[in-house]
């Protein structure tokens, strides 16, 4: 008994100003399942995550909004409160501090805020947290590298890559699916297209 009308309104509400807020949310699949959503947040300016676009898997339990949404990073991210292995998030508002007055948008904005304000004393990923505390410059460098590697390729200029590959003579649908499968890496996609 998911509150469908609320979720639909939230989706519209969240995407109304996504260019300004830097967060957006859409259905995960094309089957119209409102309980499985895909969110994106842009890396906050002035952090090692700047310029990256992070994808988040959002699952709404049947008790939503009285129960918190389940969120997990799909894009790999180097952050003390986010698992570098599976993207699990340690954030109180997604657990005991959830309030039905919060929305998917405010939750995503909170994740964005978490990116700019790590809490190494309450870590999800102990390795990252230790590095953050002991060797901060190294942490910043690693986080930036991960952002460059995992959070940029997939989204930056995907249209241009598609166009390039289409001009080479591959069908657009195939290009898109191939790019998707290699996480947006143009060269790997080309290799795959040629070999396939």
């Amino acid at each position, binding site marked *: 008994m998911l509150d469908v*009308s609320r979720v639909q309104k939230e989706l519209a*509400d969240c995407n109304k100003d996504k260019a300004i807020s830097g967060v957006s949310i859409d259905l995960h699949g094309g089957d119209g399942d409102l309980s499985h959503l895909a969110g994106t947040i842009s890396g906050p300016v002035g952090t090692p995550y700047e310029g990256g676009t992070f994808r988040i898997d959002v699952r709404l339990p049947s008790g939503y909004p009285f129960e918190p949404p389940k969120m997990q990073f799909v894009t790999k991210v180097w952050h003390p409160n986010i698992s570098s292995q599976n993207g699990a998030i340690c954030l109180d508002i997604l657990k005991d501090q959830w309030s039905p007055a919060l929305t998917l948008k405010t939750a995503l904005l909170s994740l964005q805020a978490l990116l700019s304000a790590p809490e190494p004393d309450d870590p999800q990923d102990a390795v990252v947290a230790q590095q953050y505390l002991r060797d901060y410059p190294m942490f910043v460098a690693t986080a930036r590298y991960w952002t460059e590697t995992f959070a940029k390729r997939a989204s930056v200029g995907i249209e241009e890559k598609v166009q390039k590959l289409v001009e080479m003579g591959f069908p657009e649908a195939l290009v898109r699916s191939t790019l998707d499968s290699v996480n947006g890496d143009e060269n790997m996609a080309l290799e795959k297209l040629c070999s396939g």
Partner: protein
Amino acid sequence: MHDSKANDSSVSANARDFAKKRRVNRSAKLKQCKLDARREQWLSQVKGNSCKVTPMASPPTSSSPPVSMPRPQSCLHDSDMVFPAHIPISNSSGNTPKVGCCLNNSVSRGGSTRSCSLSASDGEEEGGRGEDNVALDDWEAVADALSAYKVNDGCHPSHDTGGTFVESHVPPAPVNDPCVQSTMKPEATRTIPRAWRPDDVFRPQSLPNLYKHQSFPTNMERHFGAKVWSHPVILSAPSSCPICYEDLDPTDSSFLPCDCGFRLCLFCHKRILEADCRCPGCRKQYSPVEGEKMDMSGVAPLIPFQLSRSCSMSSRS
């Protein structure tokens, strides 16, 4: 042939009518259900605090007199004054002008006293309860004074004439008026600086922090032991429930379950009471009165209440 056709159409018309009626019935039932829930709520409150049944029974609205933080001292003063004020009534009816004046003060106090008791009963149960009962005492005094005033009103309709007389004989009374005037101004300016405008595009709907900020003056007043506060001007009441996004009907709009000012519809409120019972706006537990209504069968919630009542009895004697 012709007949059967006519019959068909009339039957279908009937069916349509019937469906319509059912729809109407359903919405009426829905409304009735809400009204019932509301009434139940009031009844439970009234049952609990029978002495609270006074003309000011409606919850504080944004139109109640704005009174602000700088007042606490004088407020204490005023509420203390209520008792001496109604002694002269019983002594001699000749003092009615004085009564009339004091009464005006105490009545205006009354409206906010209740809102104070509401706020106090929310957070810490013990402390809140204690304060609540002080407020109750004041209420009884007000009620006494009110009835006495009504009795005497007929004989002395021109009670304003004793204005100067009052000021010279009841010291605390004159303190009150300049105080109100001086504190009205800061209140007006206090509401201006605000992080989000209610119509701001970026304002997340019902951001909890905002309500925390609003409840701050309340805590201050509680801390000072003030008897008077009016609800901070609530940012334009939402037209739809921030939880289910359905429109709020008039019953919902007048429903103020938490002193942080967070409004929601009765359905969502009920749902929350069944679960963790925390206000979505400030994450505090809903006040014990509200909780008590839900678990009438449970003994535990009743005990602190009765204890605090007996406490108030002893303090009054």
